[in-house]
């Protein structure tokens, strides 16, 4: 839209032909054109003839809000609300503080009770040293019986088949044991 078109369209629009789209188009031109803005500002300075005849009407006193008695206490109620906020904050603070104190007391009591239990129990020296050596192991526990026991215990289990593990050197003694037992049997 150029300036001439803007001015023509602005002059043509009346209330009956007014549309929002037209308004948007005119406004967008006005936003981008300084010349038209200045032209319109200049036109709008002068008031239309007759409008100055309007008189200022005096408002009746009864327009003063009747409920102003409630408004008297606006500032007071504001203070009250501040006090209420402060008190509620204080309340929550107290609850928080008390809960922490209770927690500490409970922990302390539990520690004391634990201490009492230890006090009642027979005194055990803090360190007991068991002196053991290989010699102390009973003689009936030898490598062979231990091995046999392990094998037979696992015979019906889902352990891998030992016969298939012939190549495993570590398991050779199991095989030997088994052969010996079969021979004896």
């Amino acid at each position, binding site marked *: 839209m150029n300036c001439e078109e803007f001015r023509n369209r602005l002059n043509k629009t009346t209330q009956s032909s007014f549309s929002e789209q037209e308004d948007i188009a005119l406004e967008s031109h006005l936003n981008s054109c300084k010349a038209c803005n200045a032209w319109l500002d200049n036109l709008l300075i002068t008031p239309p003839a*007759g409008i100055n005849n309007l008189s200022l009407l005096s*408002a009746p006193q009864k327009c003063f809000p009747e409920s102003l008695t409630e*408004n008297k206490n606006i*500032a007071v109620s*504001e203070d009250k609300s501040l006090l209420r906020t402060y008190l509620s904050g204080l309340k929550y603070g107290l609850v928080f503080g008390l809960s922490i104190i209770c927690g500490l007391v409970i922990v302390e009591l539990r520690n004391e009770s634990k201490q009492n239990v230890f006090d009642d129990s027979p005194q055990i020296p803090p360190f007991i040293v068991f002196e053991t050596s290989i010699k102390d192991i009973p003689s009936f526990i030898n490598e062979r019986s231990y091995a046999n026991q392990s094998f037979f215990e696992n015979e019906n289990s889902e352990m891998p088949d030992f016969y298939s593990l012939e190549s495993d050197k570590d398991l050779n003694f199991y095989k030997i044991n088994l052969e010996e037992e079969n021979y004896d049997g």
Partner: protein
Amino acid sequence: MNDEEAIKLAKQGRQEGFKNLFSNHADFLFSNAFRILGNKTLAEDAIQDTFSAAFKAIASFKGESKFRTWLYKIMYRNSLRIIKQNREINPNELLPEDNESEANIINTKLDVEKVLNLLDERERSILIMVYHDDLPLKDVAEILEIKENNAKIVLYRARKRFSEIWSKFNEKEVGTDEL
């Protein structure tokens, strides 16, 4: 007492603050509301509601806009609400107009009022606020909740319509009924 001092007192809940604010602005607001609504009783209700709402919310007024602009905004919204309510009650009728004697009581100059009544609410308000109440166009745009350049277009259109009707009315070529 100026607005600033009166607002301070009102924020402290002091009656004289409210009274000063009322006396500083009530006439302007009432004149405007009467011209928007075209009815004295409804205008009184609108002004009472406006001051009541403003005084209740005075603590929230931060002074970002002028106090009068703030009041006008509340009044304009109240007036539009009243118009809407009346249209819902009487959809086929416009607002009840005051009779001539009632208008005479409040000393209106009937010719201008009649011409203004032929415009729509927004055109009427913008003409009065800009040319009668001398509010800056920026504030008027804020009150009407439109952009400043849009307000210029609305004002131009309202001004043109008013001038056309006014000249016809004064020449008495046609009666206002035919307009």
